Structures are given as C-alpha cells and as structure tokens.
C-alpha cells in the first residue's frame, strides 16, 4: 500500500487517505474540437510499465487534488506536485532521469 506526500498539507498519506483520479496533464478539448482530439482527450490513456504521471486527491485529508510522478513497476515516487501545473517540474524530471535515463511520457521527457 503506497504512500504519497500531499504537496498541499505536507502529510505523508497512505493510500486509504487518498483517491486515485486517473492520468495527469490531460488537455481538455471542448465544443468545436476535431474528432481525433476529442477522442484522445476522452478515451486515450497511457498505461506504462514504468514512469507515469497521475492525479490523486487527498480525499480523507485536506481535500486537494495533486499530481504525482511514480514508477508503476517499482512504486518509486519521483515527486508530487501542484495540480495547477501544465507540465512536471524540472526537479522531478531530473529525478526520473537519474533513475531512468532517456525516459519519455507523452510529450515530456
């Protein structure tokens, strides 16, 4: 059972305090968008064995949504960060590189 540190309240929360909220950094496509873009937004998800970016909510806690970068295989957590972010912070990307040189995930690397 994994633990993640909530970047908002600082608590090292175990999974029972948290709620998984799916993939991070999705770009919303609304009315007028092309079918392919909308399909990608609505349905297409990464399912990597390795580095992944996710949304979590500290639901039994401060209630905030946050983002996490972790390895789905080893459960190593590279960092958690603000949900009000369009891409992973550089220090977290550096940490991932230290473990997985040459990694990439969607448009990030």
């Amino acid at each position, binding site marked *: 059972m994994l633990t993640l540190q909530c970047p*908002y*309240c*600082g*608590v090292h929360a*175990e999974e*029972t*305090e948290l709620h998984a909220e799916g993939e991070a950094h999705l770009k919303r496509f609304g009315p007028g968008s092309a079918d392919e873009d909308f399909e990608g937004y609505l349905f297409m998800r990464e399912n990597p064995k390795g580095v992944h970016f996710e949304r979590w909510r500290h*639901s*039994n*806690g*401060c*209630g*905030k949504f946050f983002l996490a970068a972790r390895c789905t295989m080893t459960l190593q957590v590279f960092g958690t960060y603000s949900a009000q972010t369009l891409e992973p912070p550089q220090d977290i990307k550096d940490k991932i590189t230290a473990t997985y040189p040459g990694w990439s995930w969607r448009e990030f690397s």
Partner: protein
Amino acid sequence: MSKAVSALQGASFEGFAKVEETGLRGMITLRGDLASAEMAAAVKAATGADMPALRKVVTGDKGAVAWMSPDELLVVVDYATVNNTVAVLTEALSGVHALVANVSDARAVYRVSGEHSPDVLAKLAPVDFGKDAFGAGDIRRSRFAQVPAAVWGNADGSFEVICFRSVAQYVFDLLKVSAEKGGEVGFH
C-alpha cells in the same frame, strides 16, 4: 435556539480512556486567501487568534482557528455566538473573495481524554500519534475507520475529534469500542 440539540446529546463512555460528546459547538468554514491581510484581520477579529500555520490550531480569547487546507480554515467558537461570529467574519471580508459558512450543525465533536487516549485514536486513524509527531496545537484531517474526520490536540493532553453529524453515532461507537477496558495497548 432552545430547541437546538447536538447529535448524541452529550453521550459519554469511560473505558481505559474517556470519550464524551462535547455538545453543540460553533464552527465556521472559512475559505479564502490565507496569506492576505484581510483574512488575518478577520480571523483576529472573530477569535482573537493569529493565523495558524500548516496543520496547526491557534486559540484566541474568543475562539480557536484551525488550518484545514491551503485555502480553508475552521473557526471554532461557542455555539451561542456563532451567528455573531459569522457576521463579524462576513463584515471583515466584505469586498474580498472569500466564503464564510456556518457548519456548526453539520458536525459532532468528541473529546477523548486519559493518559492512553492516543492509543484509542491509533486504532482508528492511519496517523502517527507519537508524542514527537502529534500533540497540543496540531490538527490532522484523516479518516476514522470508514469515515472522514479531523482530530486536534488540546493543551491538557486530551484530543478532540470532529466528524459529520450523520455519522455521529458511528464515530462514537468506534471510539467506544476502541476505548473498552481490556483493549489497552500500552503503546502511547
């Protein structure tokens, strides 16, 4: 307001620790920019307390204020004066983007006291209640068994647990079964 009653009307239980429903308590959810001068002034005016730091509770002469999230506080006052406090806060924050909501009736509050009261709490919440990790002036939002709850430490070594009113009985029963004699852990 003579007809106002708390969820369990003062139920209590004495095991290896004591569990009591504290009765009605004035509680106000306050959301806004915690770093703003207006917010600090409003909190001061309402409670006499300074702005609490991360996961802390500060007590003033008129009430206490607890850090709930980066943009949320819980103001705790006497039930009898809560409408007045709502008015004070609303007035102090007029013109500022903030939310003041009276949630006094949406909660139940329990005091857990006695030397080994942390052992009662540690049976229910995935929280480190060790002396060096949690004490007077600390607040933690977590879950108690299957429901969300918050707990803070009082200066006298007792703890107060707040939960939603609809699950008041469940949380009381949880605390009761956890405090039953024979269930001493002797850890904290």
